[in-house]
C-alpha cells in the first residue's frame, strides 16, 4: 500500500514547535483542498496539541515525504525546525504508527482516552472534504477498530494517570457517592483546574473554590460554574466540606492539626478527606493521626499514579497483539485487492483458449457428443486452475511481505502473459 505518513509529535519536537504546527479544523480543510488538488489522491490530517500528522496516498510514486513536509512548512512558518523533528513512515510502517496512536499507546501519557476521538474527528473532516478513498477509509476504519478493541478488551484506560485524577479516585475510595459530597478547592492554579475537571467528570455538583487572590478564584469558578468563598473565611466553614483539595503555592502550612480537630468536632466525627497536592504542603501532616481524617499528600497520590501507569504498561503486549491482528486483516484485504484481477485474468485467458480449441475441434464430434465435450473441457480447466487460485488467495491471507507477494504476482503475470488482460480489465 503506497501510503506515506509525515509526523511531528512529542517524540520528535518540543512543545513550541508542536504548537506552531498545530492546525485548526478550518486550516486542516484548507490544507486538504490545496494538497489534494496537487499531490495526492487521498489525504487525512490528525492535529492535536501533541502531534500533527499527515497521512496520504500520493498520485504518483514521485511524491516524497520532503514535499509533504515543505508543503506543511509553507502553510505554517516555523523557526528553528529541522528534518530531525519529523518522522516519516511508509506503507505498513505508516499504518502501524496510526494503529499505535489510535490504541492510545503512542500518547504522552500512555492510555490517553481523548486520542481515539481525535482520530475519529480527523477521519470525519477528511470524509467531509472527500479526500478519503478506498484505501485511507479502510486504514482509518481499522485504526478506529483497534481503538475500540483496546477499550473493550484491555484495562489500558482503567485508573487515573495524573495527580488530580488520583485525588478524585482516592476520594471515591472513602465516599460511595461523590455527587452528594461537598468539595472545597483551595487554590486556583492549573492543578485546581484539572481537579475540578475530574470532579465534574464524576458529576460532583457541590464544589466551592477559595484562593488568596479572589479574582483568580472567581475566574475559575465562572469557567466551571461553581461557588466561591473569600480566602479569609474558608477556615470558618471547613467543617461543612467532606472533601478538601488544596493546591496553593503558600510557603507556610495553611491549616494546623488543632484546627482540624476542631473541624472534626463540629462534623461529629464524620469522615473528612483532605488531599494536599501543594508543595510545600498546605496542611500539617500530623492531621492524618486524627480519627476519620483521611489525609493524603502528593507523594501518596503519586504512588497511585505510578501503580496505574505500571498496569497500563503491562497491557502493551496485549495491545500490540490486537494491532498485529488488525494489521494482518487490513493487509489481507489489500492483497486480495491485488490478487482478484490476476485470478480473473487467468480464468478469462484459460476460458478463451478452451473455447477457441473447442470451436476448432467440435465439428469432429457428433452433435450429441459436443455438449459432453464442452463439459469435459470446462472441468479440466477448473481442475487446472484450482490449485493456482487457492495458492494466490492463501498468499494474500498469510501476509507475505509486500515484496514477496509482488514478486510472485509478477512471475504469474509473465508466465501466463496476462499483463495486457489485467490492464484491459482495469480500463
Amino acid at each position, binding site marked *: 500500500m503506497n501510503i506515506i505518513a509525515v509526523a511531528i509529535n512529542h517524540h520528535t519536537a518540543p512543545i513550541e514547535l508542536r504548537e506552531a504546527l498545530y492546525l485548526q479544523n478550518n486550516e486542516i480543510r484548507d490544507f486538504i483542498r490545496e494538497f489534494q488538488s496537487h499531490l495526492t489522491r487521498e489525504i487525512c490530517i490528525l492535529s492535536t496539541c501533541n502531534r500533527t500528522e499527515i497521512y496520504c496516498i500520493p498520485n504518483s510514486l514521485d511524491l516524497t515525504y520532503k514535499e509533504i513536509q515543505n508543503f506543511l512548512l509553507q502553510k505554517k512558518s516555523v523557526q528553528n525546525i529541522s528534518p530531525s523533528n519529523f518522522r516519516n513512515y511508509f506503507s505498513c510502517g505508516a499504518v502501524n504508527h496510526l494503529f499505535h496512536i489510535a490504541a492510545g499507546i503512542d500518547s504522552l501519557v500512555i492510555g490517553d482516552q481523548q486520542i481515539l476521538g481525535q482520530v475519529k474527528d480527523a477521519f470525519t473532516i477528511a470524509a467531509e472534504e472527500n479526500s478519503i478513498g478506498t484505501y485511507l477509509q479502510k486504514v482509518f476504519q481499522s485504526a478506529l477498530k483497534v481503538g475500540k478493541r483496546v477499550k473493550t478488551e484491555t484495562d489500558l484506560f482503567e485508573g487515573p494517570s495524573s495527580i488530580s485524577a488520583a485525588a478524585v479516585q482516592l476520594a471515591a*475510595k*472513602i465516599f460511595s457517592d461523590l455527587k452528594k459530597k461537598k468539595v472545597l478547592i483551595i487554590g486556583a492554579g492549573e492543578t485546581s483546574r484539572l481537579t475540578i475537571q475530574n470532579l465534574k467528570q464524576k458529576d460532583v455538583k457541590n464544589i466551592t473554590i477559595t484562593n488568596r487572590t479572589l479574582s483568580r478564584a472567581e475566574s475559575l469558578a465562572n469557567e466551571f460554574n461553581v461557588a466561591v468563598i473569600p480566602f479569609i473565611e474558608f477556615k470558618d466553614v471547613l467543617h461543612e466540606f467532606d472533601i478538601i483539595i488544596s493546591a496553593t503555592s503558600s510557603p507556610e502550612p495553611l491549616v494546623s492539626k488543632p484546627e482540624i480537630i476542631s473541624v472534626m468536632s463540629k462534623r461529629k466525627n*464524620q469522615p473528612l478527606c483532605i488531599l494536599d497536592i501543594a508543595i510545600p504542603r498546605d496542611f500539617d501532616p500530623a492531621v492524618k493521626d486524627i480519627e476519620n481524617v483521611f489525609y493524603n499528600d502528593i507523594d501518596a497520590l503519586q504512588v497511585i499514579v505510578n501503580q496505574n501507569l505500571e498496569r497500563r504498561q503491562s497491557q502493551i503486549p496485549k495491545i500490540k497483539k490486537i494491532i498485529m491482528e488488525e494489521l494482518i486483516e487490513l493487509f489481507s484485504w489489500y492483497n486480495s485487492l491485488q490478487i482478484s484481477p490476476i485470478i480473473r485474468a487467468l480464468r478469462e485467458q484459460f476460458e478463451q483458449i478452451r473455447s477457441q480449441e473447442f470451436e476448432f475441434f467440435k465439428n469432429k464430434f457428433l452433435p450429441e457428443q459436443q455438449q459432453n465435450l464442452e463439459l469435459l473441457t470446462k472441468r479440466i480447466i477448473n481442475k487446472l486452475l484450482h490449485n493456482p487460485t487457492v495458492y494466490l488467495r492463501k498468499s494474500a491471507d498469510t501476509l507475505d511481505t509486500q515484496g514477496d507477494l509482488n514478486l510472485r504476482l509478477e512471475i504469474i503475470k509473465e508466465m501466463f502473459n496476462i499483463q495486457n488482460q489485467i490492464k484491459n480489465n482495469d480500463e
Partner: protein
Amino acid sequence: MINLIHSLNSLLPLFYGITFLLYLLNFFYEKRGLSLWKRLSLFITLFFHFFYLLIRTLEFKHTPITTVFEIMTLLAFAITISYYIIELVTDVRNTGTFILFLPLIFQTISSFNIKDLLEVKDILRSPYLGFHVFTALSGYAGITFSAIYGLLYLLLYKQIKTQKFGLIFNRMPSLEMLEYLSMVSALVGFVMLTIAIVIGFIWLPQAFTEPSYFDPKLVATIIVWLFYAFGISGKWFFKWSGRKIVYLSITGFVISLFSMSILNLVFTGFHKFF
C-alpha cells in the same frame, strides 16, 4: 431419586470450591472473563443447591433442619443466596472471596456427614420450628456478613491511612459502602434473631413439657442480641460511625462465634431441653 440426592450431595462441595476459586482468582487477577465466569458459577451452584434442598425435602418428607449437618447445608445456601442478592443489588463484586469460603466449609462438612433420614420426630416437623431455624440461621448469617464487611472496612481504612495502596485498596468498594453493608447486614441479622427468639419463646412451652428458659444457647443468643441492640441504638441515637461501629460488629460476631462453638462442644443437641 436417592441416587440423585447422593450425587448432588457429593458434587456441591465441588461447585462451591470452583466458585470460591474463581472469586479468589478474580480478586488477584482482575479479568473480564473471570468476572463473568465467577458469577455464572455462583448462579449454577445456587441453582443445584436449591434443587438438592428441594428434592431432599420431598424425598425425606421434612425440611433439612433436623440435624446439625442438615442445618449446615441450609446455612451454606442461605449465606450464598444472601451474598448473591447483595452482589446484584450493590454491584460490589470483589467481596465474595471473603464470604464464599464459609459456604464451602459448611457444605463440605455437611456433605461428608449428612445421613438419609426417613424417620424424624414429630416435633421436628413443626412449621414453628422451621421458621425458628430459618430466622435464627438468617440472623447469624447477617451478623457474619456484618463482621466480614467490618473487617474489610478496617483493612481498607488502614491502607488509606498508612498510604499503602495494595490489593484491598484496588479491589474494594468505598469505606462508606463497606460501612453501609456492614450496618445493613447487622440490622437484618438483628431483626432475624429477634424473630427467632420471639418464635422460640412462643413455641417452647407448646412443644416441650419441661422447657427451660435458662438453656445456654438461648442465653448466649440473648446476650448476642443485646450486644447488637446496644450497637444499633448507638448508631441510631448517637450517630456512631466508622471504626467504632465496625469494632462493635466484629466484637458481636466474635462473642457469638465463641459462645456457639463452646456450647456445641459441650452439648450434643440443639438446646438443653432437646
